[in-house]
């Protein structure tokens, strides 16, 4: 296992310091902003498993996020199920949807842009279905009544909601760390690097990819549940809209896909960038999005391995090279 470089220590230290500083200086604005970023981070962690480690670039993770949000909302509002019970059922439903999408796509050998398009299509189909049937509110969405209390998985205090979101991110990262070190993670990375070679080595690539989708679906479903319990409202556009799918992949892309910290670093950086752009050009709405887009393009162009990749290149200068160069001569 490689040791973290100086740059990585600084980057991860800064992220942790920021996240912990919110407890010392609880500001509702920063808490609200970070809660949003952390919920998206959970979704990004889900995307990172299939897209980052497995190389299966999904463009429709909203399908899994939305299923988590809608199933928990339907169970709570329509059937009166307690959210503590509804949440695991919703997560299981999202994992199931992911498994079905994965099994159908991988069975027919879809990869690359074809897989991306199919996942996008699944999300779009679910969006249309959700806006057509009355069980999902038929486009009106579902509103969860506000009843603050731990028993309802709703918190009046922002700090509590923040703690929950932070715990979910930590859990997602622990799962990723476990996966990285496991045989399953090694199989997944092998598939990303060369699927044919992985097959030749005896890896059941179909099973591994479907399992990765199921794991990713469960985590994305968790993000959906967290979104619903925070904002208490979901409709087809929020749940299955393309913007959620884009948010899911932007974080790891910017932070560093296929890395443990990439989704968190990338999502926080993106949200901070968006917020800073907004503050900078507050007089001209829309200009912030232009600025955001330009900076995003610059990052994608010059940092192909993301912010974590950049941090990895920042090391303490070594003294040894001068001597070893002489010896080499």
């Amino acid at each position, binding site marked *: 296992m490689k040791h973290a470089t100086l740059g990585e220590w*600084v980057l991860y*230290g*800064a992220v942790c310091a*920021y996240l912990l*500083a919110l407890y010392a*200086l609880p*500001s*509702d*604005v*920063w*808490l*609200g*902003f970070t809660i*949003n970023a952390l919920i998206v981070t959970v979704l990004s962690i889900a995307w990172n498993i299939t897209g980052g480690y497995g190389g299966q670039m999904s463009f429709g993770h909203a399908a899994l996020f939305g299923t988590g949000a809608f199933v928990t909302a339907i169970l709570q509002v329509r059937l009166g199920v307690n959210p503590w019970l509804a949440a695991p059922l919703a997560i299981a439903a999202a994992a199931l949807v992911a498994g079905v999408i994965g099994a159908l796509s991988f069975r027919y050998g879809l990869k690359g842009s074809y897989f991306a398009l199919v996942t996008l299509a699944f999300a779009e189909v679910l*969006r249309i279905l959700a*806006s*057509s049937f009355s069980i999902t*509110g*038929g*486009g*009106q*969405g579902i*509103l969860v*009544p*506000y009843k603050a209390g731990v028993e309802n998985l709703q918190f*009046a205090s*922002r700090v509590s909601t923040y703690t929950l979101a932070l715990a979910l991110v930590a859990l997602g990262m622990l799962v990723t760390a476990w996966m990285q070190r496991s045989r399953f993670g090694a199989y997944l990375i092998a598939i990303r690097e060369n699927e044919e070679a992985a097959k030749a080595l005896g890896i059941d690539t179909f099973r591994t990819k479907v399992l990765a989708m199921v794991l990713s679906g469960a985590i994305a479903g968790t993000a959906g549940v967290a*979104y619903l319990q925070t*904002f*208490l*409202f979901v*409709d*087809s*556009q*929020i749940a299955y809209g393309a*913007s959620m799918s884009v948010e899911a992949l932007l974080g790891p892309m910017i932070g560093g896909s296929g890395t443990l910290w990439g989704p968190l670093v990338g999502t926080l950086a993106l949200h*901070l960038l968006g*917020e*800073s752009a*907004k*503050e900078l050009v*507050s007089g001209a*709405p*829309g200009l*912030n*999005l232009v600025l955001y887009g330009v900076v995003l393009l610059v990052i994608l162009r010059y940092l192909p391995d993301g912010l974590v990749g950049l941090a990895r290149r*920042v090391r303490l200068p070594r003294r040894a090279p001068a001597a070893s160069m002489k010896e080499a001569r």
Partner: protein
Amino acid sequence: MTSRDENWTTSAISRRNLLKAGAASTAVGLIGAPTVLRAQTPTVKIGILEPLTGALSYNGTQARAGAQFAIDAINAAGGIKSMGGAKLEPVVADAQSRPEVAAAEVDKLAQAGVSVFIGCQASALGLASSQAAARYNLAQVFDVGTAEQVVERGLKNVFRFTPGVNKCTSTALENLKTLNANAGNPVKTAAIVHEDGPFGSGLAKLLNERLPGMGIQVVETISHPTPQRDFTNIALRVKAAKPDMIIPSNYINEYTLFAMALRQQRVETKAIYSILGGGASNIKFVREQNDAAQYVMDCNHWYDPRKPESQALAKKAAEAKLDMTYDIMVAYACIQLIADSLERAKSGDREKMIEALASSTYSGSIMPYGPTKFVNGNNEGAQPVNTQIRGDKIELVFPKEYATAEAVFPMPPRG
């Protein structure tokens, strides 16, 4: 500000110091100066939370302009007199047409110290923002938020000044019934084309329940997302269903494109009757698609054009080269309601604002409303009116006491 700068510059120590110095001097400028100013002229901060970017940016920017016109007018007239001539100070926030952003922006408004805020042009945004505002006991006056869920949550901080979808639909259907009966009941079938968000879907559901009772059979109900750019297939489906009347319910861009597609596909019908149609009461639609817009009727939010203040607002909007849309009107009226509540509350305190709004009987706004009466946050004094596009004008045709023209129903063949 400082905490963000620290995050951005963790690796550059000298730059961080420089930024700190900059931030400190900015803070002195931002915080110090207004303290001196406040001592001279008291101000009350009013939040304006609108979708200034994203799919609903047109409505949002129009509403922001309307609110600003009202604030300027109130300040020019001496501000809030019971508070020593306190001036209204707008604090603008962009909901980006996304519910989670709308909720997050409420935190900023609360931190900025607003006493009350208006917003957010769409029910999904307003549901999220008012839920977030409830944590701060901060009142939200809904300019547009027609979904009934808005006022069904028992939130004490919700004040929907304009009518909801139920009121709009029942008024629109009563008016339609009268129009149809007066013309000898030429309309017997209808097609509904609606956006698939909370507003359009709620309306379609209500219409499907109520139109058959009026002797009008619904032959087609078609939903579409926002944004949607190609309406050819929808127009062709409508053409195949041969309805006597088409009821579109969507936002301005989709409305315009749909009306255009109906003309291109030569869909003939006896009436295009909208309920809360985004384009049917929009002069932009009238100007840009004049042929497609003729005789289109709408039941929507609209001001009383006879009031001097309405005429002054229309003049201001024309000077600012803005189209006079209902977004401007309702945002203007919401600020008027807030100003009246501030006069009575004699304070910008949030709790007192909620009490003042809840007990409001205000009837002086530019809208053709009776005295304000909030019941569970729903203004029962609010009512929509019927408009019809005639030539290059939007005429008010119902109710009679506000009418500027007689309704033409059914519409003559458009060829």
